């Protein structure tokens, strides 16, 4: 009778051991499947900044003391409409004129351009190699290109 009870106890013990082992097996198996999850690092970004006219100004004009606040551009005849303006020509033959509002930076581009600076002087000009000296009036040449 006693040995039968012992056998029953042993079986019950084995049964619980088996249950714990089965649960452990399930846990470890799941760990093995999920342990290798990896999320790759990703970098992405956007940057925005307003562009001031002076950021487009040639360095020669900036270092020459003119900081422009607006831009006027075109082909043919281009005349400034405000003081401290960046006056931009084209690849053709242009005539760039300061309309006496104040000091400007004039950039002619390619072509045999003409420059008409402020009467009292002080405008700065970037002229092309094709521009002849007589066509540069009252304007200080700060660079030659192209």
């Amino acid at each position: 009778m006693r040995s039968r009870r012992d056998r029953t106890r042993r079986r019950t013990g084995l049964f619980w051991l088996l249950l714990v082992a089965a649960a452990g097996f399930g846990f470890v198996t799941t760990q093995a499947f999920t342990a290798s999850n990896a999320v790759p690092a990703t970098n992405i970004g956007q940057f925005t900044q307003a562009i001031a006219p002076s950021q487009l100004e040639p360095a020669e004009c900036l270092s020459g003391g003119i900081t422009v606040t607006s831009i006027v551009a075109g082909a043919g005849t281009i005349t400034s409409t405000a003081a401290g303006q960046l006056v931009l020509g084209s690849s053709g033959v242009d005539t760039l004129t300061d309309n006496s509002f104040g000091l400007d930076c004039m950039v002619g581009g390619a072509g045999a351009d003409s420059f008409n600076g402020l009467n009292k002087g002080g405008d700065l000009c970037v002229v092309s190699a094709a521009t002849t000296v007589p066509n540069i009036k009252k304007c200080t040449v700060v660079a030659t290109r192209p």
Partner: protein
Amino acid sequence: MRPRPLTLALVVLAVLAGALLGRVATAANTVPTGLVGQGSQATSAYSITGIGYTLDVNNPQDVAQVAFTISPSSARVVKARLYNAGSWYACTNSAGSVTCATTSPAVPATSANNLTVVATQ
């Protein structure tokens, strides 16, 4: 000795319970630190400095290129545009020194009023 059906069912239930416990234990996966940003300089994941624009030498009405320094320098794809709703231009990143040719299509200097740069690894 054949196992009783109840015993088998309990063993299977134990396996399932263990698996469920394993799932719960691993639900808090660690995600590596990433950079993300949008919209403005303040929240950008990348730092853009030393921005410089170059006018077209022959036709200064147009902007020929924009150049800047990007950090982290590992940005693989960088694109830029010079005004809202303008064209996007592909850029070249050489160890953090980025140049973007803006010649095709041309960007008039009078239109270039807002630089937007997008970058990703």
